[in-house]
């Protein structure tokens, strides 16, 4: 069942160390790192955040032989990948199982807020670090912020976009915070700035034109000052963004052919995934989709739990499958990491009503695809009830290091907090999830 990835030829972190190991820890041969950075396998990244704790046993880690209460109300179905079964609620992802890898053995045991919905738990998965709001831990940046810092994208596009609030602050400062679009809010500040009414566009065009021609006439402050240079850069970028149709068109979902849009599903969350694809197509380096808010994937007992689970899992199925298909069709899947998961799994036994499950931090499933991940692969395993990891256990630090490896970013590189504290991109040493790499 587990597909060991024998073809993996890349050097491991330890190898790097041995080759470059003349100096202090973390120093590797620069040329190797440069080569990796110059030609990374992944250039872009989409995160589908299933906050709240998606039920692995009802999605990617079916346990048909477990007692009835454990295996839950949904039946497994076969997939395009021999040996992998998924829930009957996910027929589309079953058909595209040759495109992604399921990680069944990564968890955040011992990380902040483990087994709870606290911000710390989400940060473990979104930063690969222990970011604890109760202590003085650095405010580790999300993957997108690191990308924006270390490898900025095109000038007329933002480096990191989110749909839904993920708490933007990080020690990298506001310059690397994501910009957040609220697709469903007609008064969304960013959207209204970027996609003004046609009349405003005329005024804006007139004014930015005027600004350009005024440059040579205005009294200028010292251009060589770094602060001025920074302001110039950002103003230029802002004007570029405002004048360039790229971003405006990417977030304008009305431009997507109806047929194509419908494949993503009808819900507001599915539209976010569609918008994410359009942004990736436009060239935005990292897009984060909050798929049903901060704790939407929480299935405690009670009326409506069953229906909610059906709705969320089905929506995820259509949206994620359409995303993978579209990326593939556009030739973007090989260079774009798709990462879908939540902060924990859910308990083998129902909490009360059918379809309900409690928080569970010992096992969960993560979907990764594209950008150098194997196509059609399952890594790790859990016991007969889906309760504990039995094989190939990895931590979120491993997951993060694997992402950065594919993105060509040295996870041991030190970035600086505003008070000049050096912090490694991923603080903990951990092995790569090599089984998942193509």
């Amino acid at each position: 069942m587990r597909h060991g990835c024998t073809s993996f030829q890349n050097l491991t972190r330890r190898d790097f160390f041995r080759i470059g190991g003349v100096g202090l820890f973390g120093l590797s041969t620069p040329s190797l790192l440069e080569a990796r950075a110059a030609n990374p396998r992944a250039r872009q990244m989409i995160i589908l955040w299933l906050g709240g704790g998606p039920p692995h046993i009802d999605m990617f880690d079916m346990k048909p032989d477990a007692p009835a209460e454990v295996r839950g109300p949904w039946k497994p179905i076969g997939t395009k990948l021999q040996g992998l079964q998924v829930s009957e609620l996910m027929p589309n992802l079953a058909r595209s199982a040759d495109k992604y890898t399921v990680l069944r053995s990564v968890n955040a045991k011992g990380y902040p807020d483990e087994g709870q919905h606290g911000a710390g738990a989400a940060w473990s998965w979104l930063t690969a670090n222990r970011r604890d709001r109760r202590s003085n831990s650095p405010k580790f940046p999300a993957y997108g912020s690191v990308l924006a810092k270390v490898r900025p994208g095109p000038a007329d596009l933002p480096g990191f976009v989110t749909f839904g609030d993920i708490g933007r602050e990080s020690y990298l400062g506001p310059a690397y915070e994501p910009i957040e679009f609220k697709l469903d809010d007609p008064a969304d500040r960013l959207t209204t700035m970027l996609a003004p009414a046609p009349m405003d566009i005329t005024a804006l065009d007139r004014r930015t034109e005027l600004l350009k021609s005024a440059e040579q006439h205005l009294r200028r402050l010292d251009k060589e000052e770094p602060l001025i240079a920074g302001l110039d850069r950002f103003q230029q970028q802002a004007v570029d963004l405002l004048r360039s149709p790229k971003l405006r068109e990417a977030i304008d979902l009305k431009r997507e052919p109806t047929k194509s849009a419908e494949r993503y599903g009808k819900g507001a969350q599915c539209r976010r995934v569609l918008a994410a694809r359009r942004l990736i197509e436009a060239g935005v380096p990292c897009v984060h989709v909050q798929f049903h808010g901060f704790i939407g994937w929480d299935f405690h007992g009670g009326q409506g739990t069953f229906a909610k689970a059906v709705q969320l899992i089905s929506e995820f199925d259509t949206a994620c499958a359409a995303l993978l298909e579209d990326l593939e069709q556009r030739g973007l899947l090989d260079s774009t990491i798709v990462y879908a998961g939540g902060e924990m799994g859910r308990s083998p036994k129902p909490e009360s009503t059918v379809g309900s499950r409690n928080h569970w931090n010992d096992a969960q499933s993560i979907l990764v695809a594209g950008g150098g991940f194997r196509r059609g692969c399952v890594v790790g395993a859990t016991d007969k009830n889906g309760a504990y990891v039995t094989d190939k256990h990895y931590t979120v630090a491993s997951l993060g290091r694997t992402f950065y490896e594919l993105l060509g970013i040295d996870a041991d590189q030190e970035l600086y907090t505003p008070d000049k504290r050096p912090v490694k991109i991923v603080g903990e040493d951990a092995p790569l999830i090599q089984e998942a790499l193509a």
Partner: protein
Amino acid sequence: MIRTCLSWTGSLFALLLGAGEIVAGESNLPAPSLPSEPLFSRHIVPLFGRLGCNAGACHGAVQGKNGFRLSLFGADPASDHERLRREFGGRRLNFTDPAQSLLLLKATGQVPHEGGKRLLVGGAEYQSILGWIARGAPLDPLDKSKLTGLLLTPEQQTLRPGASYRLQVLATFADGSQEDVTALSTFESRDGAVATVSLEAHVQGMGPGSAALLARFRGQPVVSRVFVPAEAKAAFPEVKEHNFIDRHVLDRLRQLHWHPAELCDDVTFLRRVSLDVTGALPPPDEIRAYSADRRADKRNRKIDELLSRPDHAALWATKFCDILKPHYREDDRFFSEGAQVRRFYEWFRTRLQENVPYDQIVERILTATSAEGRTKDEVLKELEAMALEDAAFSTDLKAYASRRTLDLYWLRPNAGGVPGTIQIAHAFLGLRLQCAECHRHPTDVWQQDDLLSFANFFMRVGRGGEKPSPAEQKQQAEETKKLTEQVKKLRDQAKAKDVAKDESDRLLAEAADLEKKAGMAARFNYLRSTFTGVAPAARASFASVSSSLGKADSKTFRLLGAATAVTPAPDQDPRELVVAWMRKTDNPYFAKAIVNRVWAHYMGRGIVDPPDDLSPLNPPTHPELLDELCRGFIASKYDLKWLHRTILVSRTYQQSSQANASSRADAAHYSRFALRRLPAEVLVDAINHATGGSETYPAVAYVPPGTRAIEVPGDAIVRSRVPASTGIQAAATSGYALELFGRPRRDSSNLCDCDREGAPSLVQGLYLAAFPDLLRKVGNPQGRAAQIVKDHADDARRIEEVFLWTLARLPTASEQRFFREHLQKSPSGQQGVEDVLWLLLNTREFLLNH
């Protein structure tokens, strides 16, 4: 060069060493060497430090590395010795064949070592360790080898690029012996572009500037400074010093051959000083009057006038909120309340308006009590007045502002104990002790015990107020019930069909009054149970911490940097001892912290920078200047206005921001005025000033409509993301801008002055160019543009007015021509003027203080 040196502290020492400018070649110090019979704690442990073995990333890590642990930077030689001898079956040291000791085999890479090859077989360092093992690896008597002094020479040195010299580290030990420990130390240059320093203590001049050089012996740091002058291309200009600040700054610039900028022009000065002192742009009338003023001392007069304006107190009350962080966390209900945060702010504003000496302000914060020695009745009366203000959503919270002490400081969660002590050290001493909470500070001099023993002074602050007795509670509940019923009855009566309009209004007004009374009673009880608690507790408790690294505690009272403990009298509030210590004229941090912060506010960077890091490892660029400012400030009896004025009148503050060819490379020596982006609140106010806009606030903000952003304290009410539980609605429009332009959270979980963000960002650019609300302000038919069009028919005059309201200056001829052309092309005067206004808001000149 010698003449310049004479004005520095330590210059005598430099002279004795013959340390003039080194043009080429190097000093004749002998090459560093190791002793023939090294002692473990004096020589071997420092060697581990020099080789990097006991660094935090290697065996100095908490869990060690690969089963071998050393104390971080060799802080604990005894346990290091124990681990070397006993652990790992004693194989680390081989007494029969010392060269086969695992310690040496690993370090030399003869067996695989993750840390790589650190030691050369046969080298001097290798021989030292080998010899020590051969002698049986003895542990020397530790008390004799305790470090009592460390000296890095030369303390200052001027050096040409390409030239070099050697540093020497001298250690004094408890037994009185002194030793050259250069070969056992590590070295670091804080600015490699100015000078580099090698492991052999070789300093090499690179490019113009000054750099701190850091040496460490056994984890203890010591600092010296190197100056590398630029090439002297022209004679240093004649410039007139305004006061002692300029003497220090110019001396340094002269030494580095960097020429100072010209004085800025009068109009630039007016804009600059208005923004810096009051957070506001000067209106056109003031600019015109100032330009027309021909008096020679008009700058000094303006400074005095601005310092006496209420806006100056408002701006600095905001600054002190940045530092003291009245907000706690968004999920903390008490301090999310607009009223409490506003009271905190208003208390400060009132004290600053009264110009209470800084040491007294700090005393009134640090030794605050709820009762302030008054009778219970007096205290309750104060609470009653506060309850009334709260219930009425008063926009004028007077009752608290007249208190002598700020007990609100202590009512914040985490104000006491170890976290509170870390904040006190940060706020009043400019020190960063966070890392010392769990372990020895890895990049500073503080030990965990320093922090815990200091925290003990703040462990006896009682909180928690007076809970009403059950009987009182019952009585209150009944009263509330009665009032509520009455209100309902009145409202029902008013709604009845046969009631006349004015009778109905009267009934409703009465109901509203009663409701307010009920609300006030509830507030009063709440305030009483919270606001009466701050007092020295009778019971002693001591500071302790427990973390993943283990538990630690202290039972002694020891002031920061003091060698010995003190014992507070049984009836004494230990906090008073801290205040007394702060007030000592030789306190190394107290005056320096505020002087350096005020300096940084006006000059764009601290003499010690970052300004809230007065660590001995972060030396000042101009130590003599900082000393003289501190002495003057103390001599003025901690008069903040003296401090502001002294800095503002200096030529250094009044220079142009335009660099000249000679000083382009300078970033830290004040060869020109440092540009900076307007702080978030000042910017929001400036936009409103320019466009004629204003802000409205929700009632829970407890501020009147039209209040300037600089007067809105705290954080919660202007953030766009506020949890529903606080009952606070996000404020109208300014919230987004304030967040975007880096207004600090003022939350004690983030103890850094850098919480206020001044960096530009993409979304800021978007905001200024296209934020709908800002565009509405620009195009407001009752706004500035419309007013200018109405008041002035002449295009040239219209352009002048827009320039004065935005950039606070008149347009140049070229600007005037360009914009007149645009106005002539515009379909309407209104549209044309709006375009000019929009454009000027989007210039660097508007966004910056320059």
